[in-house]
């Protein structure tokens, strides 16, 4: 694994971002829109229902959800950018390996979310006096678990685009939202019908968001939830890498690396 080649692909993304108003805006536009909407909605609900803790519940869920969405999005969009600029062949005739290519996209997802999460956390504090860091260092394993699952989903989306071309690029935006209603993101797992709760816990998100709500409520970090999240993360990431490897071999057999960017 060459860190220099991984850095090269991230440097390419940074070059694009530093002069593109659209790319810079993308870092904060939707996160800020969400933050305004959910922030004021939760203020309204808190006053009307007298549920004082709802601001913290919703805003922490929103920021953590954005960690998942933005990391996944960063991976898929960096791959799509190579297709849109017809650069994929140029990259794969250099010594870069598939592993380095994937690693570069993952690092880019991290860079993007570091900027976005910082901005969101600061704005949430300024507007609503909500301090995400009050959740303490227990927040770190939850963020890491979200990032790993986002890597897995982003890798799957990228593999599908590699296989089926730009006609399925909409998955980069839409697929993560499939997890939102079924990930117990903004409400507890107990809201779902009893028969659905078991199957839903086969994905990491309900464990992560249940753990986050426990922290917001002032309870200790539920280690069993964190353990399950990381166990499932490992399984999904391994499956995602295997899926990408399979799709890449298929792309080489069917000549898709040349066709996919046409």
């Amino acid at each position: 694994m060459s860190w220099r080649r991984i850095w090269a692909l991230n440097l390419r993304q940074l070059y694009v971002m530093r002069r593109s108003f659209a790319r810079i805006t993308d870092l904060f536009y939707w996160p800020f829109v969400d933050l305004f909407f959910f922030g004021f909605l939760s203020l309204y609900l808190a006053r009307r229902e007298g549920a004082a803790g709802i601001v913290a519940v919703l805003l922490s869920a929103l920021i953590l959800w954005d960690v998942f969405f933005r990391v996944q999005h960063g991976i898929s969009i960096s791959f799509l950018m190579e297709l849109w600029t017809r650069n994929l062949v140029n990259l794969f005739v250099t010594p870069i390996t598939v592993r380095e290519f994937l690693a570069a996209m993952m690092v880019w997802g991290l860079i993007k979310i570091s900027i976005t999460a910082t901005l969101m956390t600061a704005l949430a504090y300024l507007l609503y006096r909500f301090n995400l860091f009050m959740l303490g260092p227990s927040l770190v394993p939850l963020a890491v678990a979200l990032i790993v699952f986002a890597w897995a989903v982003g890798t799957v989306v990228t593999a599908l685009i590699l296989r089926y071309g730009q006609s399925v690029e909409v998955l980069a935006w839409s697929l993560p939202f499939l997890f939102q209603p079924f990930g117990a993101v903004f409400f507890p797992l107990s809201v779902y019908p009893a028969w659905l709760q078991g199957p839903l816990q086969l994905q990491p998100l309900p464990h992560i968001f249940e753990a986050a709500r426990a922290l917001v409520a002032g309870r200790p970090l539920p280690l069993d939830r964190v353990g399950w999240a990381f166990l499932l993360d490992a399984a999904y990431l391994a499956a995602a890498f295997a899926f990408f490897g399979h799709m890449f071999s298929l792309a080489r057999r069917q000549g898709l690396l040349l066709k996919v960017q046409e």
Partner: protein
Amino acid sequence: MDAPVIDVAGLTKAFDRSRAVDGISFQVRRGELLGFLGLNGAGKTTTIAMLLGLIAPTAGTVRILGQPMPDRRRDILARVNFSSPYVALPYDLTVRENLTVFSHLYGLAAPRRTIADLSELFGVAHLLDRRTGSLSSGETARVNLVKAFLNDPDVLFLDEPTAALDPEAADTVRSLLLRLGRDRGLTIFYTSHNMREVERLSSRIIFLHRGRIIADGPAAQVVRDYGKSDLEEFFVALARSEREARV
């Protein structure tokens, strides 16, 4: 005699029921400037893609610089480069940024100096801070060639290197390729539809037709063997017979 730089044996690629490349075998020696020719759809692009590890062969083997492709893909691609007008450098980066990114991908020790030297050589130094997407097709072709020489390759694959250039620029590029090939002992494997260019540049040609090699040797010899006056006449005759066969 030196070991072949490119060694292809029984190379075949089948897509569904058609065979794009049908059991071709050839060797290319160090310093050869090989014109890889054929009508559209003859299998040239598929062959080059297999040599570069972009497409997996259905059968046969490829060895580049003595190493098997794709098993030693990373080692091979560090010593090989490729340029094609149909594969773009990202348009939203400046020329310098693009070349810097590729310098890192090839692990260059002194990227700035290499970029400066090659940009001078190919006459694009004044374009380094321009957006790649704003260049003319001729300027883009020369920038692509700078990219292709970044890693000081032993083997260069060029897909129609002068297709987008005006006659004067094309002549400059041809002279440069001849000189660089000679001075650096570079092996150049290139495709072109400009038969006069091929006759001037190539030390040898391979003519591919329906996925098979139908001619292999110096251009003058191939022309003589087929009883034609030049390579253009050979190409046109083949294209017409192909069209009549379809009708």
